[in-house]
């Protein structure tokens, strides 16, 4: 009887020894200070021009309203702005700073902005060569000649991958907090964040808006990021089963993810694009109350779409992996 746990342990350690996780940490360590520095410059500029954040916010709202009155601006863009104006107005009316300059707020925004491109990239660093890597080194033969059912091997890889996805999300949050906190201070855990904005066309219904302390909001947001990242991870696992070379596997997945972000910024007229998984990755938008890229998309829709893609990918991965002949 071959037990699963040793297999999972084996796979987890293999990923660790391949130093992929170090790469992820290294990328974070390089990028976070860059963004922190950029944010610091913005804050400095605002501090110079405005007496306090309320003046800055009221000016921001005014600038957006002026832009809205221009006929030259496309209607689609106006819809986003109108909603943003109403939300900023809500924060202002409650006397809550939506862009408070502290480490926790910076981390929250960094994570939310990273969900469509940066997290998929980090996940791919680990997921892309899970199977294809074994092929290129030839170790796949040793792995499959062991008296272990094939599905168990792939399953253990999947579990290891899940563990690393969780580690990436948590580690990125912690690193970002530690680094940005050094510049902006480590406070902000209890700041209220509003969630529950309902969007009807171009108006925001604030009936169900409620305040959530920022630490809880971070947890909620991280959970959504994890779900998005897991979908990407599972799809990457499938690609890595199907494609022989790791490079091809990374390129395929990156192409899909990038196509998704481009689509979501321009697909308002092509409605079926909402069934593409990469268009649905920005789950944090629903929490924030930003309008979805395509009208009619809801949290439930996105969760189901992502889940279907993931389940489909799992079915394909397991079928192919258990049936496929290993030649070469």
């Amino acid at each position, binding site marked *: 009887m071959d037990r699963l746990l*040793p297999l999972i*342990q084996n796979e*987890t*350690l293999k990923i*660790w020894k391949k130093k992929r996780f170090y790469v992820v940490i290294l990328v974070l360590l390089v990028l976070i200070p860059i963004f922190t520095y950029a944010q610091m410059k913005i804050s400095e500029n605002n501090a110079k021009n405005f*007496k306090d954040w*309320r*003046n800055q*916010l*009221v*000016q921001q*709202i*005014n600038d957006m*309203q*002026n832009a809205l*009155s*221009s006929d030259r601006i496309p209607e689609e863009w106006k819809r986003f702005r109108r909603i943003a104006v109403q939300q900023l*107005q809500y924060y*202002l*009316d*409650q*006397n*809550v700073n939506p862009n408070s300059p502290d480490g926790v707020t910076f981390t929250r925004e960094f994570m939310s902005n990273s969900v469509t491109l940066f997290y998929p990239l980090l996940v791919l660093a680990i997921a892309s060569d899970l199977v294809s890597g074994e092929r290129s080194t030839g170790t796949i033969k040793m792995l499959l000649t062991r008296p272990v059912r094939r599905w168990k091997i792939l399953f253990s890889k999947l579990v290891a991958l*899940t*563990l*690393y996805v*969780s*580690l990436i*999300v*948590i580690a990125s949050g912690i690193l970002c907090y530690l680094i940005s906190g050094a510049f902006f201070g480590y406070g902000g855990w209890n700041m*209220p964040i*509003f*969630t*529950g904005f309902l969007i009807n066309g171009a108006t925001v219904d604030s*009936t*169900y*808006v*409620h*305040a*959530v302390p920022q630490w*809880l909001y971070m*947890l*909620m*947001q*991280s*959970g*959504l990021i*994890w*779900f998005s990242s897991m979908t990407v991870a599972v799809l990457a696992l499938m690609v890595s089963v199907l494609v022989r070379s790791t490079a091809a596997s990374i390129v395929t997945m990156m192409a899909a993810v990038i196509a998704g972000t481009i689509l979501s910024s321009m697909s308002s007229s092509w409605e079926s694009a909402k069934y593409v998984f990469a268009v649905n990755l920005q789950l944090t938008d*629903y*929490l924030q109350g930003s309008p979805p890229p395509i009208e009619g998309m809801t*949290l*439930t829709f996105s*969760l189901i779409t992502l889940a279907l893609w993931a389940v489909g990918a799992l079915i394909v991965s397991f079928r192919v992996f258990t049936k496929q002949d290993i030649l070469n």
Partner: protein
Amino acid sequence: MRSNPSGGLWKAVSITALLSTLLLLFGFGYSVKDMLWPQQGTYVGEDLSAKPPERSKLGQSKEILITAIGDSLTKGTGDATGEGYVKQLIPLLKEKFNIPVRLNNNLALNGMRADQLANNLGKEKGIRYSLSQANLIVFTIGGNDLFQIATGQSASEATGELNMEKLKKELPVGLARLERVIKELNEINPNAQIVYVGMYNPFYDLKGLREGSLEVQKWNQQAYEMIYNYPNMTMVPTFDLFEKSTERYLSSDHFHPNNEGYAQIAARIVQSLE
């Protein structure tokens, strides 16, 4: 399982990762619950209010803090440099009073009418906040009420819609709106110096529209009667600037001043302040 040197590493990685996964799953579940079955909550925060400035002469205060409000004239539409009269006030005031001058906010909106402004002053907390901080408030309003034209349009379109009958009819309506604006402003900040920039007829040099100047003058006259009631308010005339010198002071849309025109308005505002 054989014991190996990686045992410790495995334990550390797996336990950390497992805990992370559980935490994230909880976060995921909580946010889905929170979004699909939202609960109405009431957030009671601090009220948005600023300490009003002390009532003192502008020249004797520590710092001049300007909040500008109104229509496209205050926004600076037509000025290719984007300064408008508001930004040009700053160096002039600095020079005159020798104290720091700061633009708190310029909250003017293109196309704003006096009724919209009065409504905003009544309900927009952010605008009220910014106004109550200031010790100098400058505003323009009424142009869109009288001429009923959207800003940024070309002169031909604008004049096409304008007729004298309509202008005469709009006058009392617009003045009633202006009165609301003035009352709101006084209520929000009774201590600040408030300057109203009077109206001018941009079509003085156009045939058939020259008599619009008479209506504009009526507006200015009655606006002054309202402002006269408040000792901290001043009205600055501008009508004379745009009669002979339209070429020099009006921008290419033949409605808004250009940079030089705004410079003249700014100079007049500064002259009126003490």
